[in-house]
């Protein structure tokens, strides 16, 4: 894959490399600068971080969008790309929609995940100012972005309809090209083109794709069977697409609930159910992001470079057994690392809980026991603020903001 196409679309990664550098530098300054830097210096040195993240996303999404709608080259007689145009290869048709959809998804997910953690704290009775801020700031950002993401998602679906019709057919399990195409919620595509199970809504797919029942939607059978996803792949892309859309819609309702309470009472919703949903929203948005990637990657099968290179042609001669073994190792390593990470975080949290309950921090029980990012204060005033009365003193603000 890279041997043949590296020079055509690899440049985006070059941009990502600077972004990576800048991120590594400024995150280090941010994390390790709390103690000695002046507060404003520290703040301003953190400002480049989101910009570097946007730049990094530019490179990655540029490369992925190129795989979806490759351009910026012509093929010579031997089938190798020549006349490379870098601008065209970076700004491919799918680049814009994919970029904005992805960037907003990332900020939104980050918002819900962080807010979700504080929502759990809230449910456990921590109602201090620190928890309120910890919940409100990320949740507000995510809630504002959610409806925006709804439009961006709708837009990218329609762009796929125009620019990658076969992927659209897979995501919506459309078998034959035609008008008045029904929309299926879930359901399984059978090898003969019928759909088993699922909820069928007449004409809706045509309306969603082109705002009219008469919109013609390209079906999977418009291309030879070897050039389109299999029925199983199409069903997978369809399910992930539907799950993504469903969770997205549910998050909009949650955002509206929050907005409504804020408009009416300038305060958080009182219902515990709101916080339960908010706690779930973090995990749900991570699922949504993964579903989106599965839809776009599986929906492109059997191509790795759409209409230019099949996955099977990109594979190296390495034996399947070796590849599976390596894949197994990678999965095991990541599961172990993630498990260890969760274990450490949970233990830290338990330790701080004990500290919050007023049990004194266990005295140094071995070398180097001081942990980074310590607990919020376990002082009497903070414990008072933990009680339901919300007007506790600001003592519970993060210590780093002194």
């Amino acid at each position, binding site marked *: 894959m890279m041997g*043949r196409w590296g020079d055509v679309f*690899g440049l985006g990664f070059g941009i990502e490399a*600077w972004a990576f550098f800048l991120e*590594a530098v400024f995150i280090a300054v941010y994390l390790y600068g709390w103690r*000695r830097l002046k507060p404003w210096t520290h703040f301003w040195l953190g400002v480049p971080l989101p910009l570097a993240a946007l730049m990094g996303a530019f490179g990655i999404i540029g490369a992925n969008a190129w795989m979806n709608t490759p351009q910026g080259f012509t093929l010579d007689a031997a089938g190798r790309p020549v006349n490379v145009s870098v601008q065209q290869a970076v700004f491919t048709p799918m680049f814009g929609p994919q970029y904005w959809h992805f960037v907003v998804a990332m900020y939104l997910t980050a918002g819900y995940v962080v807010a979700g953690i504080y929502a759990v704290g809230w449910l456990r009775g921590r109602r201090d100012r620190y928890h309120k801020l910890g919940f409100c700031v990320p949740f507000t950002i995510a809630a504002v972005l959610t409806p925006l993401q709804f439009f961006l998602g709708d837009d990218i679906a329609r762009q796929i309809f125009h620019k990658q019709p076969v992927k659209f057919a897979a995501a919506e399990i459309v078998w034959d090209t035609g008008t008045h195409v029904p929309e299926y919620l879930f359901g399984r595509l059978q090898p003969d083109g019928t759909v088993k199970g699922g909820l069928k809504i007449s004409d809706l797919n045509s309306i969603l794709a082109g705002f009219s029942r008469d919109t013609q939607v390209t079906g999977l059978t418009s291309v030879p069977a070897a050039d389109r996803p299999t029925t199983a792949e199409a069903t997978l892309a369809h399910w992930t697409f539907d799950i993504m859309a469903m969770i997205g819609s549910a998050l909009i309702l949650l955002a509206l609930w929050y907005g409504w309470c804020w408009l009416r009472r300038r305060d958080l919703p009182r219902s515990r159910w709101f916080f339960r949903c908010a706690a779930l929203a973090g995990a749900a948005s991570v699922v949504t992001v993964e579903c989106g990637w599965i839809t776009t990657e599986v929906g492109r099968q059997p191509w790795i470079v759409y209409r230019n290179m099949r996955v099977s042609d990109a594979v190296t001669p390495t034996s399947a057994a070796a590849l599976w073994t390596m894949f197994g190792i990678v999965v095991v390593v990541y599961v172990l*690392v993630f498990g260890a990470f969760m274990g450490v975080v949970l233990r830290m949290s338990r330790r701080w809980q004990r500290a919050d309950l007023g049990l004194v921090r266990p005295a140094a029980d071995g070398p180097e*026991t001081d942990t980074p990012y310590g607990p919020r204060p376990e002082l009497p005033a903070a414990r008072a603020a933990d009680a339901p009365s919300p007007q506790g003193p600001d003592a519970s*603000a993060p210590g780093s903001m*002194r």
Partner: protein
Amino acid sequence: MTADAVAWILLLAVAAYACGGGVDYGAGFWDLFAGGAERGERPRRLIDHAMAPVWETNNVWLVFVLILMWTGFPVLFEAVFSAMWLPLALAAVGLVLRGAGFALRKPTRRLARRRIYGAAFAVCSLLTPFFLGAAAGGVASGRAAPGVTASAEVWANATSVVAGLLAIAATAFLGAVFLTADARRFGERDLVIYFRLRAWCSLVAVGVLALIGLSVTRKHTTYVYHGLTHGFGLLLVLLSIAAAAATALLIGTHAPGWARYTSVASVALVIAAWGIAQRPYLVPTSLTVQQAAGATKPLQWLMLVTAIALVLVGPALVLLYRLDTHGMLEAQTDADVERGAAQGQR
């Protein structure tokens, strides 16, 4: 012409990674050999303290190397990664594990768990440079030629093993030199002596391994060997030896900080000598720079990207290292936060 320029940039990036990443791996090497929990406590604390703010940045050079390879020289990338996917994949796994081990050790309290995470970090700090060095050996001995299918022979031959060991020794040398300077910076006299001794020992190890390597691998790497022992390549090798000797002297003085520059110079000069010795090949005697080069326009853009990277990333790197060496970067701890909160409350 453009391809040559990009090849030079690639060589520079490799040298930068060998130095930046090398210091980092070297710190891990000394972490592994610091002894038990009691005896190794202070060296480990110093290593942790010195590494934490900069280790991620030091490893980004690898990303840059990869990008230069696949955008600038797609054929080289394909050849190297098809023939040696196994050591490279293992190096990648090592990178992930050592990062995770390093990060997770810090907030863990129980000694048994700290040992597990510390071991993951330290063992992978040896394995990763070994596999990367072995891959470099596979390139230098011309075994990773285009079209070669993956086999152990490509990266588990004498040249590769020597190159891998040499990589470990060089990282240990760099690590010890930098840690000596850090120990001095933090005013830990005994650790200055501790790491200084280790710097000298690892320098000797590098020298011995280099001599063995040259004699053992001579018949497999005739092209590179010739380049290293003649003309400009030889000059760079001699300069590198001079820089290493200067390091050994400087590290014994009251200003071991200067030894950091000479140690980096000695490693970078060896990498440069390797590049010069390979000219005009990327993989000796089977793939030249011109044959491996991608399309011209992306190469020109790649140079532009590099120029912008210099402008953007250069100052950021200078800032990070300055803040770090001026002691402005320090992790927060439980105690810190409590103190801060207590002050805020008053």
